[in-house]
């Protein structure tokens, strides 16, 4: 019998990734695929979904940005504290090709870093493009370097790497040819440009979406998108670019906790 309930896990390690950005590491064999997510529970507070950012044998990690009351509470937790974890949920990325490009905007870097690790293990050449407003907000640079992954950094203010957009770097790589597939996670306006560039170069692309989720397993309907009714938690969060083109609310609006449409 299936039971969807959080399991209390002890925080094994906390890594400061960037400004207001921490990774929480757990000793637990999650058996997730890149692109899948877990839902974290702090008793008497709330539950929130997080993409799996790292997984290795019996360990996994999520990366949490202190942006709201839940995530700020998470940042106050210490090694040895417990939080509830359920999942993994969602479909995950389909890893294929010999040369792939990952385009991460902001905290979209988390699931793509896990994907980069897995692809590198399979001897796939990975170009990891990561963009943020400033240098202090960039995670995983050391980790990617250690894994031998070619990383391209973009900052809005030029404080590190290239001054400009992730899509400028993507265009350059696509123009050079030999890219088999592109994966992206980040702001939808950025991902819209990524899809456009992939279309122009006839390269397949997978997109990871984020919507307000509650149950996480396709029952409550909170994260269903227009007009297809796909549940991002179960039918996604990863969609092909062909599927994303059917989602009319993409880069336009999403629904909040009450179900009201809010502009993106």
């Amino acid at each position, binding site marked *: *019998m*299936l*039971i*969807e*309930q*959080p*399991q*209390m896990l002890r925080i094994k390690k906390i890594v400061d990734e960037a400004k207001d950005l921490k990774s929480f590491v757990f000793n637990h064999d999650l058996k997730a695929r890149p692109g899948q997510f877990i*839902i974290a*529970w702090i*008793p*008497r*507070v*709330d*539950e*929130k979904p997080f993409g799996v950012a790292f997984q290795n044998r019996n360990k996994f990690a999520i990366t949490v940005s202190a942006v709201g009351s839940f995530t700020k509470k998470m940042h106050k937790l210490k090694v040895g504290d*417990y939080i*509830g974890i359920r999942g993994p949920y969602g479909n995950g990325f389909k890893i294929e090709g010999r040369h792939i490009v990952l385009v991460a905007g902001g905290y979209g870097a988390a699931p793509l870093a896990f994907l980069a690790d897995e692809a590198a293990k399979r001897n796939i050449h990975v170009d990891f493009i990561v963009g943020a407003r400033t240098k202090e907000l960039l995670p995983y640079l050391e980790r990617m370097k250690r894994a031998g992954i070619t990383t391209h950094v973009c900052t809005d203010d030029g404080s590190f790497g290239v001054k400009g957009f992730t899509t400028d770097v993507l265009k350059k790589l696509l123009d050079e040819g030999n890219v088999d597939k592109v994966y992206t996670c980040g702001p939808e306006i950025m991902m819209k440009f990524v899809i456009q560039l992939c279309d122009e170069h006839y390269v397949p692309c997978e997109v990871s979406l984020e919507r307000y989720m*509650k*149950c996480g*397993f*396709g*029952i*409550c*309907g*909170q994260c*269903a*998108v*227009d*007009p*297809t*009714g*796909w*549940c991002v938690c179960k039918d996604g969060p990863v969609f092909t670019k062909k599927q994303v083109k059917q989602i009319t609310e993409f880069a336009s609006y999403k*629904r*909040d*906790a*009450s*179900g*009201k*449409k809010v502009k993106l």
Partner: protein
Amino acid sequence: MLETKLCGVRLRNPTVLASGILGVSGASLAKVARKGAGAVTSKSVSIEERKGHPCPILLTYEAGVMNAVGLSNPGVDKIIDELRFYKQNSNAPLIASIFASKTKDFGICAKKISEAKPDLIEVNISCPNVEAEFGKPFAADVRMAAAVTRAVKKNTKIPVFVKLSPNVPDIASIAKSVEKAGANGITAVNTVGPGMIINIEAGKPLLANKAGGMSGPAIKPIAVKAVYDIYSAVKIPIIGTGGVTTGRDAVEMFMAGATAVGIGSGVYYRGVDIFKKVCDEIAEFMRRHGYNKIKEMIGIAH
């Protein structure tokens, strides 16, 4: 063979998506209809927007599902667009669920939602998950249940189903009172309990609301008994809801007295294709036992 009728509204098959499952948006409801539901029920709406309870709001346990969503909804004005989208994109009848905290507001909500022209209106007087806020549900009291029914009936021409709570000593008396007050049908039942799950490692209840309504296989016998009792007491049609997961469960509901069956938690156990699966199983049972119409099975357990 599987056709059934609720107050003159024709359903191509007797499976109805229960309120609160996959019912936030018109697109989600339309998907469920495409997947085979005979009718769909939208998530309950109130006059004003509600954020609902913090998460967890929905979990499962050994024998079923437990939820305390807290009636989150964007408010009736916003839901009209969702229901219109559904009507434009689907042919399966639409049941619009409403709730309120005051008798008068049920009337206002009914009037507003009627603009979206749902085929039926379902009046949720039985949510067990907002007791801290609203007190005991209207469905727990014969007079209150009737008063709400009258308020809704006065404000709409659309047939009205009243959704009852199993958490009462005598559900048949509540059914009789809402029938007398003008209800055109009854949905039975809402979730059971409420119950509670405590995570023993955390030493805290799992649901943010602490308690939650129970649904799924565990409650089926309770739902069947409720439908059986209601069928004995009233003449109006019943949507039998509670733990229906297979075609055999649905047949049990028909025999107890249901004209159609609600499916909610079943989506968790068998996916959104459950509607088609249950229909196939009902049809197979009917062929094997020589039934030609759903009607021939309704109430035969009496």
